[in-house]
């Protein structure tokens, strides 16, 4: 899985391309950890090109959410694909990580 980071006006966008599985989960934690360490607290994970997630990936998402919140910020997810939506719903994690339709809209109501 490949990750890229882009600084936007009011948040940092992290995009992941590929499968968020046990191989990619530690990489996501590392990428988001670096973003938070650099002082960026509002993070949007753009999942447009993330075509798969499993419970390891979900664990990494929760870990990243905790990192952002402990730093006084938040992590939100956007553009989720059908398999990711299915896994979020079946594990009820959509209550904690509510998918946003667009990355731009994830923090727009704050």
């Amino acid at each position, binding site marked *: 899985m490949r990750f890229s980071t882009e600084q936007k006006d009011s948040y940092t966008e992290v995009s992941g391309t590929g*499968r968020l*599985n*046990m*191989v990619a989960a530690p990489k996501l934690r590392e990428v988001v950890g670096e973003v938070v360490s650099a002082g960026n607290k509002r993070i949007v994970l753009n999942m447009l090109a993330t075509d*798969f997630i*499993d*419970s*390891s990936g*979900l*664990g*990494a998402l*929760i*870990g990243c959410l*905790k990192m952002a919140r402990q730093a006084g910020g938040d992590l939100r997810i956007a553009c989720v694909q*059908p*398999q990711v939506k*299915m*896994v979020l719903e*079946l*594990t*009820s*994690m959509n*209550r*904690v990580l509510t998918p946003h339709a667009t990355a731009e809209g994830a923090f727009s109501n704050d």
Partner: protein
Amino acid sequence: MTEVLAQRAYQAPASPEAIDELHTELDRIWEVASFVPELDQMAFTTAVIESASNVVQHGVAVPGGELRLGVTLTVMSSVLQARISEIGAVPSPEMPSASLPDDDEESGRGLALIEALMTTITVELRGETKTWVLSREIETPA
């Protein structure tokens, strides 16, 4: 119902890299069995990867041996079946919890997810091989 329409087998040392290779095997089987509805493909792939990841993460090799992951994927006209084997493992009859953990827990959702996606789950223990047999009935039979 029992006629085999597509089948693939995979075996490798139980490493994280094997999970990506197995995912590619799953993608290949859907190329052959494209009649299987997308929802069933998605559910089956998710459960198989969860189960195989469990072998890689929690399987313990017998002393001096190598832990291997063996998977057979079978597509029948109305059923999808996977046999996921932990080969050369210290026998462990314990089952992980199937209930969902607290929202802030970072692990422990795998079996709950597999249960939600599969019609039946059985576990066979034979010496140093533990095999998970996962089946999902196809929602709209071909």
